[in-house]
């Protein structure tokens, strides 16, 4: 059964290794599921969130995975809209990573709300002025698009492909994939942005608030931009990790380098915009609310200027410079470093825009609000990682994700 499912012409690890891996990661997954069930049955008192910290680890994780999942929409955009055809060798994986990120994000949202059985109110009773409504709609729609993009991949499984209808379906879906990808890019642009808007529109939260155009604060655009810049880095990073784990080369260097180069330029332009935004905020926006920039970075045990340095310099300027330099992205070590830094950079940005926003005291007689997650929160945040690892393992084992794999790893004797 196992071998019959494995794509032709590709070598996979022995079944016991695979099962062992799934079992180990599955145990972590079950731990997360247990915590998730606790939260659903007993309520959010299982977390360490409180009335001052209504958004916590989960929402950060949510924003972070969506930013990282941005590789899917941006690669799709590059391939289908811009026409960077080389990216077809990476797009499948980008889609799977995106699918994992987005399904995780939706799951987290379902755990995070106080009344999960009323979760659908966000659609049915939608308030279009709320950034969260926009997030929910675009997120769900884009998740649908990702699912549509993922389906043909599943249908390409050796056994499923044998069914004529599925074969045709897969073929037909591939045929109009550009339409879906374009829709996905459109949706993605908005929801990445609206996630940025979540904190940016909070005009009574001076740390998060940004001015902007029309209904969109600058963070709207910065979030989209940073997701487009850092998402592909994450795709590259996961690809590299997959290559490491499977001990095979799966994608050719030129493909990776192309994506890395685009990513680098995106990151550079993003970080320039981010610096301008930060400067304007520090000099104009915050003082209008009665704050100096240092009010946001002092008198507390965690948030200092270091976090700004980590986000902008280490997580932005450094990886951008590495990636736009041919030598930087050709060198395996610096490429890896750059992608890791970019991922850290965008995660730190999301952290700051979720958690620091709430930590900053706004009423002058208050002090900083600090928070540490409970194990249930940590477990449910790790859950998507475990789920992602399992899904990647299964997908990689049974689906022909990497078109270049057979070429890069020729199998001497075809397995029976």
């Amino acid at each position: 059964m196992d071998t019959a499912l494995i794509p032709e012409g590709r070598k996979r690890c022995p079944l016991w290794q695979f099962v062992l891996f799934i079992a180990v990661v599955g145990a972590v997954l079950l731990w997360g599921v247990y915590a998730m069930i606790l939260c659903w049955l007993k309520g959010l008192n299982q977390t360490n969130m409180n009335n001052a910290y209504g958004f916590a680890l989960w929402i950060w994780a949510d924003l972070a995975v969506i930013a990282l999942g941005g590789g899917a929409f941006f690669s799709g955009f590059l391939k289908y809209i811009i026409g960077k055809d080389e990216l077809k060798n990476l797009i499948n994986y980008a889609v799977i990573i995106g699918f994992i990120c987005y399904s995780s994000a939706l799951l987290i949202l379902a755990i995070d709300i106080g009344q999960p059985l009323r979760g659908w109110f966000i659609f049915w009773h939608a308030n279009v002025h709320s950034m969260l409504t926009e997030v929910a709609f675009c997120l769900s729609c884009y998740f649908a698009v990702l699912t549509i993009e993922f389906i043909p991949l599943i249908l390409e499984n050796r056994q499923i492909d044998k069914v004529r209808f599925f074969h045709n379906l897969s073929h037909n879906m591939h045929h109009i994939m550009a339409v879906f990808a374009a829709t996905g890019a459109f949706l993605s642009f908005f929801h990445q942005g609206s996630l940025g808007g979540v904190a940016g529109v909070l005009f009574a939260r001076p740390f998060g608030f940004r001015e902007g155009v029309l209904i969109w604060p600058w963070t709207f655009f910065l979030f989209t931009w940073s997701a487009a810049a850092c998402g592909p880095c994450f795709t590259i990073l996961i690809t590299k990790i997959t290559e490491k784990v499977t001990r095979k080369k799966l994608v050719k260097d030129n493909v990776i380098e192309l994506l890395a180069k685009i990513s680098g330029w995106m990151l550079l332009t993003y970080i320039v915009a981010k610096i301008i935004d930060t400067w304007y905020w520090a000099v104009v926006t915050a003082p209008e609310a009665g704050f100096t920039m240092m009010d946001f970075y002092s008198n507390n045990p965690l948030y200092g200027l270091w976090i700004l340095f980590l986000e902008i310099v280490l997580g932005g300027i450094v990886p951008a410079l590495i990636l736009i330099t041919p030598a930087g992205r050709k060198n395996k070590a610096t490429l890896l470093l750059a992608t890791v830094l970019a991922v850290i950079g965008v995660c730190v940005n999301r952290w700051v825009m979720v958690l620091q926003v709430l930590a900053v005291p706004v009423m002058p007689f208050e002090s900083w609000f600090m928070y540490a997650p409970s194990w249930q929160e940590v477990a449910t945040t790790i859950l998507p990682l475990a789920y992602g690892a399992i899904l990647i393992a299964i997908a990689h084992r049974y689906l022909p994700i990497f078109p270049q794999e057979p070429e890069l790893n020729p199998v001497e004797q075809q397995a029976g």
Partner: protein
Amino acid sequence: MKKAQEHTAPKKYGMVIDLDKCTGCGACMAACMAENNVPFREDETDKNLSITWLRVYKLTNGKKFPNADVCYLPRPCMHCEGHHGHSPCVSVCPATATDYSYDTGIVSQIYTRCFGCRYCMAACPYHVRYFNWWDPVWPEGMEKMLSPNVSVRTRGVVEKCSFCFHRYQIAMEKVRYEGRAELAEDEYQTACTQACPANAITFGDLNNHDHAVYKLKTHPDAFRLLERLGTNPKVYYISSREWVRRQGDNYLENEGKVVAKAH
């Protein structure tokens, strides 16, 4: 409907709290809890987990003994008007569970609509919004004191001060029964206003020249919390102490006092 609808001038209910008079005794808090079926738990010492629609903050002037000073600041929901009713919380609620009425100026919260995303809590700089982290539990027999005028909230929803809007509703029943058009000032008062033993709280229609709040809000020592953020709150404070007024908002070091603008 046969009869014409009441056409009365839009009201803007608001509050003026005299911090010189407020003694920090907490009667307003208890009256509010009793009025609004607020639940209680065994350990309420973590104030970030404790539901108190009206919270009395303790402000200190930061000076050394014996020049230290303390001021209590009761903080109900500010019922921000924001810009045309777009208060910080109202516009962010994804399910339209919180709303602003142009008719009364009250920010409503509908518990059965709220699904507990807590975005409004993140949006509110005053921390007036409280999440029901736990199921409310009354010891056997104590559910007898629950008021039918305010619905009991379940776990997982956000709640907040309503300016005792049910009291407005109850008062209006009588007004309608007697065939009157308007509510008198003393017919609709919040539970905290009524209870305050120091008479520190004044409540009424900020639009109505005849109401006490109309004049009080223009007191030279009146200010509003975080006014410069544009929340346009409807709760005014009066304090004769400069240090208290300064703690009402954030100011840069070399900035003078920003004068309260009555809306």
